[in-house]
């Protein structure tokens, strides 16, 4: 709970500025709401971006960081294209989502958050995405039996894709990749370290 001493103060805003991708733009919002109205998944947001920006200013840290809303972003960039103040809203939403995940405040079983991690893990294995493995990971993310169900439900789709040669069962054996996944991993690990090091503690 935010107390009166945090309400409408800069504390959370400063935290967002320091730790969230493009967070320094949040203060520039003028509450026109064009982002909220432009989002293709808009109706699924409990709090549209402009409202989230206001909540940040109002010091509603918990409500923002435990919200499911940021994960609704499809990266369509409508909000960025239309924002009259030039806020990189897509990136701020991604940043807030990742930050809430980093702090462990993200809602449980958020499917997009899980998918994001699966995608990342998948690409980091060989440097390129293995669609088949990724798809299977996605199906099986909630356990084996749910995975079978999911796979069955999408069976026809898979068969169609195989037929069209746009899915290859052999991919399960390995698939495409960069020459030295280890080198890439080293690079990314370093990047991750730097990023982690930049995070400031506001707790």
């Amino acid at each position, binding site marked *: 709970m935010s107390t009166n001493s945090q309400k409408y103060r800069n504390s959370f805003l400063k935290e967002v500025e320091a730790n969230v991708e493009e967070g320094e733009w949040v203060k520039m919002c003028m509450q026109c709401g064009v982002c909220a109205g432009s989002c293709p998944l808009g109706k*699924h947001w409990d709090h549209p971006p402009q409202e989230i920006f206001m909540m940040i200013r109002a010091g509603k840290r918990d409500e923002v960081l435990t919200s499911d809303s940021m994960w609704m972003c499809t990266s*369509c*960039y*409508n909000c960025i*294209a239309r924002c009259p103040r030039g806020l990189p809203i897509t990136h701020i939403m991604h940043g807030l989502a990742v930050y809430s995940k980093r702090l462990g405040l993200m809602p449980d079983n958020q499917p997009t958050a899980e998918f994001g991690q699966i995608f990342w893990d998948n690409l980091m294995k060989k440097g390129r995405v293995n669609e088949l493995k990724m798809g299977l990971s996605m199906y099986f993310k909630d356990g084996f039996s749910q995975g079978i169900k999911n796979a069955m439900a999408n069976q026809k789709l898979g068969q169609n894709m195989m037929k069209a040669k746009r899915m290859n069962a052999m991919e399960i054996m390995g698939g495409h990749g960069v020459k030295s996944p280890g080198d890439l991993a080293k690079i*990314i690990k370093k990047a991750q370290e730097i990023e982690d090091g930049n995070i400031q503690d506001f707790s």
Partner: protein
Amino acid sequence: MAKIELSFYPGCSSQKGATSSNYLVSAQTMCEELDITLNEIPDWNCCGASIGYGGGGELPRLTLSARNIALSEEHNAGQEIVSPCAACWLNTREAKERLNEDEKMMQDANTALAEGGLRFKGEVNVRHMVEVLVEDIGFDAIKDKVKKPLEGLKIAGYVGCQTNRPFGIAGESFENPQYLDKIVEAVGADSIPTFEKKVQCCGGALAFSEPEKSQEMIHGIIEAAYDNGADMIVTPCPLCQANVEIYQDQINETYGTKFDMPVVYYSTLMSVAFGRNAQDAALNGHIIKAKKLEEIASK
């Protein structure tokens, strides 16, 4: 027509056996016809797509693209990077711009890249394949190449999101880009300028994680194509193509519709119109067959 040589970033989905492998085939055919040489960036990696942020955060994600740019700058020096994939193009261009704007970020990325012995300069232009067509080749030149005009075909130009925003193509508007319609016209087919869903989001990566929400939007896109009398949809984006094509069975089940709308790439259209066969146009790569194109290709 001057020969064009580009540093090529095909992206994961266009690899053999991946969702847009047919895009790559038709794009290569198209480039052959237009005398465009594509020099693949050696050892390129995934760009992180639009969902990589969920696992990789900011700097790791930007570093992925910085590596590709660094590789291109090293091995394909002097060549502009081109990608046929919306997300690949967007991420790469975004990384280039963000790192150039932010000195600290650039330094950090290079510190990371140094682990693999690479250095990002960020001087190279990053372009989408369509930009090359529109800006360097031109609609008239495309028209001139047409051997089999796609007469009588009514094609809805579905631009989608990331080929269009935030960067856009050749000064086109975010809300009503017209280049696909112009390509459709150039290859002799009928465009549908009134197709109101041309920049509607298909859900992108959320088609996996939020299938119901995404399929609701895809349903709207296909419905609008039907309402406008389209024979097929054309798109420049692999994820759009996949999302709009492959879920039609599931959508039919959910919504009680009978959608059977082919979704092809602009490169498919051009390959056929330029007189190439169905295989070169990768028409076999479609789940919903573009029969009318197949007919023309086989003539």
